């Protein structure tokens, strides 16, 4: 079986597994599938992939949609071979909270800590909400990867 067939079969099986949770499905480029979900469907969607052995969680990306936008996005990237599935969850900045997926995938702990400190997203139930990268004396409520955070100019 050639690689392209394997990739399309992988993506098709992911599509079927995720169908109950899918709000919108996009195929932005060959080998990739992008699925938007409601926050409440995140855990069932991750479980559908993980418990059926579909690939592995490769990274979690936080996105600020813009200074004038009210929302943040969290992208969970899963890969099986060359096939990539991204689960996309949108949360309002005013109430940025998502459930933890560590009960299923403990390796997500680092990614969830990063979301918390860099984007101010509360990951409900994450086993360790401590800072991972930012210094201990970093001011509370300042989230550097949000678009409204402007890097201060260094004088001179």
């Amino acid at each position, binding site marked *: 079986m050639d690689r392209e067939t394997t990739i399309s079969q992988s993506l098709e099986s992911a599509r079927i597994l995720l169908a109950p949770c899918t709000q919108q499905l996009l195929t932005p480029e060959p080998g990739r599938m992008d699925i938007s979900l409601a926050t409440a469907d995140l855990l069932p969607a991750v479980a559908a992939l993980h418990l059926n052995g579909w690939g592995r969680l490769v990274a979690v990306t936080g996105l*600020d949609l813009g200074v004038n936008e009210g929302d943040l996005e969290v*992208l969970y990237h899963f890969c099986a071979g060359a096939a990539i599935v991204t689960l996309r969850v949108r949360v309002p900045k005013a109430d940025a909270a998502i459930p933890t997926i560590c009960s299923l995938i403990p390796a997500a702990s680092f990614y969830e800590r990063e979301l918390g400190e860099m984007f101010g997203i509360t990951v409900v139930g994450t086993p360790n909400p401590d800072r991972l*990268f930012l210094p201990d004396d970093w001011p509370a409520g300042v989230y550097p990867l949000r678009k409204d955070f402007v890097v201060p100019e260094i004088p001179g």
Partner: protein
Amino acid sequence: MQKNDQADKFIIPIGPQHPALKEPGHFEFTVDGEIVTGATIRLGYVHRGIEKATESRTWVQNLYLLERVCGICSHIHATAYCLGVERLAGLSVPPRAQAIRELVVELERIHSHMLWLGVAAHEAGFDTLFMYSWRDRETVMDILEGLTGNRVHYSANILGGVKIDVDAEQTKTILQGVDFLEKRTHHYLDVVTTDSAFVQRTAGIAVMSKAVAEHFGAVGPTARASGVTQDIRIDAPYLAYEDFPVEIVLDTAGDLKARFVVRVQELFQSYQVIRAILDKLPAGELAVTMPRRIKENETISRVEAPRGELFYYLKSNGTDKPERIKIRTPSICNFGTVPALAAGHQLADMPMILAGIDPCFSCNDRMVTIHRPADDSQTWTWEMLRQYGISYYREKER
């Protein structure tokens, strides 16, 4: 990874500056006597805000910034970024450029694995192996310098291709170097599998089963030493890996020894693929022109860095600067395995267990000979230092 908050346990904090690692990281080991029962990790001591910094720099400027994420696997970061940006811009990079990129990637892997071999041997107290492997590593460092002009941040890539070419003279030098290294690597494989004192520090230590490796998301040689069949070069070939493939190196033992064997054997794969590339280097252009602005889009770029899968997420917004770049390095995946590996082992095994995952160390130190006037007191040659040392002690004896 639970928080360490049991008040009745004895917690030994190690780091951020500590004897085991040359780069800062803070570990808290919960111990029961000599035996470690748990561990937590605090990173970020060298956090430089690079992801944020990319958002205020142009696509071209970011190439140079991102090459500096790591001082060991610099080229692979630049390559992952270039592949992503080129996909966003819809560029088709000439085959010769992709092959040269792959050549540098594999030379870099050799330098990285040999660096690791030395560091890991040093953690085991086997400094002879450390010094020999680092001496031999100079061969590949010289090749990289000869090829690109730089030892660490090679800067071989540009968006749209490469800025270096390989001529017949360089091919000869590279092949000679690779032959020498291959001979040495056979010796190292022999040492790490048969030296009884060394094997006592590695065999059966920090055993990670395939299931545990998958559970904690280990990547790269750390995962492959536990029998996880995962290598992005094979799973999702990029650059010229379709034409110049590598074979996966696996071990099922899952202990520290297996991590040594896998990394050393991966060197043979790199030698093989370098010879193949130099033998059949495609002719043609080295680069295509890259547009300044990229329309709104997003992509994912995955490559196999020396430490495992490196992941880039790139989002463009129509300007000459990216909207967002997310980098997930292999070390963060492998760090997650340390608490699980540490439990049940002696505290004295911790440096080796940490080194076993090959956490990303910086290295760019070297001896430089600069030709300056003899009266320049700021530059000392080795001979001047030696003479100074001799006369200093003579003075002292009087």
